[in-house]
């Protein structure tokens, strides 16, 4: 093993090409992963921040918050279900926002949420009518505390009183106000979607921990099918484009991993061919095939670790340099470490293509003892 490490230390140039290519692959893997996480984060923040066990949509909503409407009567039925402890209304409306300092036609896409049960990072009592908390990402659109944003064709005015982080929804910055603020803005700007008093789009439900299993089914039974109840994960996956973009990105990541395996396999196969004579000598003086192959694997793992380390540093640098709200990229420890692990596993798999060649090295060849 020390032989393998010494070779890397004394002849770093031999491993430079493989390390460079694997570093580029590591950066690509981590960048793709970071983009996927960033896109998911920017689509799902509003739901992930909910302190809820389940979200209740109307039965005819086809799992869409925008299409869903929950009447007060249905809400009462949900509240009476065994195991349900707290129920809060949730409403949303997507509108272009006019922000002071930006051009008249330069609308900022926003989603105004009305809430009762405070998501993480928001005060438990919603702000007074006409005021909202804004998602951090809107800072890059000139939004500050005290900024009055005019929403939609009706120019409904809401004033920002604070910020909350990681609550973006389908790629747009969010504003969080009371249900009354939401109703007023919705009814003013979307006459076709007006809602009456007490009507909300969805219910945010918290349950007793022991009763959580089967809670969605119990709620839907209690409302006699007037609702469709989803766990937070199900609700995230039902958001438009989320599962599709995850699938596409994971396929690209998968192809990148296959490329990494091929690169390692080709590189170490070539290296093994070059070393045939040396391996013959080492076998002749008593090295086992296992020892020699372990050296190859160790070198591949070191190359993959160096590449991963550079990839991690590059990703963290990129994450720090990208202004909030521009490119949807986040470098999470989980993603970076899992990418490094995947790359190391790919390196080990790639090496296995050299195993047969190492096993076939004949020690007698070192002394010219085979015909």
């Amino acid at each position: 093993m020390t032989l393998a490490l010494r070779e890397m230390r004394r002849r770093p140039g031999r491993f430079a090409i493989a390390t460079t290519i694997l570093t580029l692959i590591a950066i690509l893997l981590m960048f793709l992963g970071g983009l996927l996480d960033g896109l998911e984060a920017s689509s799902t923040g509003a739901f992930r921040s909910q302190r809820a066990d389940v979200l209740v949509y109307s039965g005819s909503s086809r799992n869409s918050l925008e299409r869903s409407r929950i009447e007060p009567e249905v809400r009462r039925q949900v509240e009476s279900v065994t195991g349900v402890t707290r129920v809060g209304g949730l409403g949303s409306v997507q509108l272009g926002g006019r922000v002071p300092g930006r051009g008249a036609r330069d609308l900022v896409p926003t989603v105004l949420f009305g809430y009762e049960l405070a998501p993480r990072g928001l005060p438990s009592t919603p702000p007074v009518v006409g005021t909202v908390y804004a998602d951090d990402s809107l800072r890059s659109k000139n939004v500050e505390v005290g900024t009055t944003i005019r929403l939609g064709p009706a120019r409904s005015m809401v004033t920002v009183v604070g910020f909350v982080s990681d609550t973006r929804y389908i790629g747009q910055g969010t504003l969080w106000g009371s249900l009354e603020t939401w109703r007023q803005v919705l009814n003013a700007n979307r006459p076709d979607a007006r809602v009456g008093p007490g009507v909300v789009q969805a219910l945010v439900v918290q349950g007793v921990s022991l009763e959580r299993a089967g809670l969605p089914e119990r709620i839907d039974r209690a409302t006699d099918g007037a609702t469709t109840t989803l766990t937070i994960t199900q609700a995230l996956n039902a958001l438009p484009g989320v599962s599709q973009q995850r699938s596409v990105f994971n396929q690209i990541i998968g192809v990148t991993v296959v490329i990494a395996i091929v690169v390692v396999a080709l590189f170490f196969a070539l290296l093994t061919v070059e070393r045939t004579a040396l391996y013959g000598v080492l076998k002749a003086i008593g090295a086992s095939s296992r020892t020699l192959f372990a050296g190859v694997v160790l070198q591949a793992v070191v190359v993959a670790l160096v590449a991963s380390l550079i990839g991690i540093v590059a990703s963290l640098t990129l994450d720090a340099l990208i202004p909030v709200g521009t490119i949807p990229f986040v470098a999470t420890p989980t993603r970076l470490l899992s990418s490094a692990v995947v790359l190391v596993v790919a390196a080990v798999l790639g090496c296995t293509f050299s195993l047969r060649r190492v096993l076939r090295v004949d020690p007698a060849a070192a002394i010219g003892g085979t015909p």
Partner: protein
Amino acid sequence: MTLLTESASTTGHALELRGITKIYTVADDEVVALDHVDLTVASDEIVALVGPSGSGKTTLCSIAGGLLSPTHGSVEVAGREISGYSERQLTQFRRDAVGFVFQTVNLVPFLTARENLLVVDEVGPRRGRAARDRADQLLEELGLTDRAANLPAQLSGGQKQRVAIGRALMNEPSLVLFDEPTSALDSSLGDQVVRLIRHEMKARGTAAIIVTHDDRITHYADRTVHIEDGRITE
């Protein structure tokens, strides 16, 4: 492990080959490389194995060193009967009981002279300090102390050959096999190396087989064995 518990022979022979036959199958043809060869080498004897190309001397050397298994016959090295050994046992046997000096020297190019000796320790169970002391002692005896930190590319042909001899002696073998040790050296350097081989072998009481084309080497051997068409014609 059989290899470790087997008792040493009482014959005092470093090598005893009895009825060795080696047949290679090339395509559909059978090539007899060795044909009923018998050879005994005493425990401190230096034998020059001479013969034309293709006569079977390298095959004989490979069988004696546990690099190849014979098709028929028995091989006993320092009292160990190795003809029935598995690949794994042969690997361990080579690590423990024999030394090799190859025709093209074949030092590990990215290791210093000292590290090339310690490779023998690294590929097997580590002996640590004892191995380092042994390497330093061998380098001193071979006049290479001041070259211990040099890479092979920084050594002359004779110095490389001396490092190779040191590597062959690292495991304190009963038998050292030299494959054309002077073929890459000029005549005066070759002569110097063969004298060194004789000195080192005799000083340690170690047996050696020197495969060679070079008749001058035979003067330094205790005995010369001729081989032709796979048969010893001593």
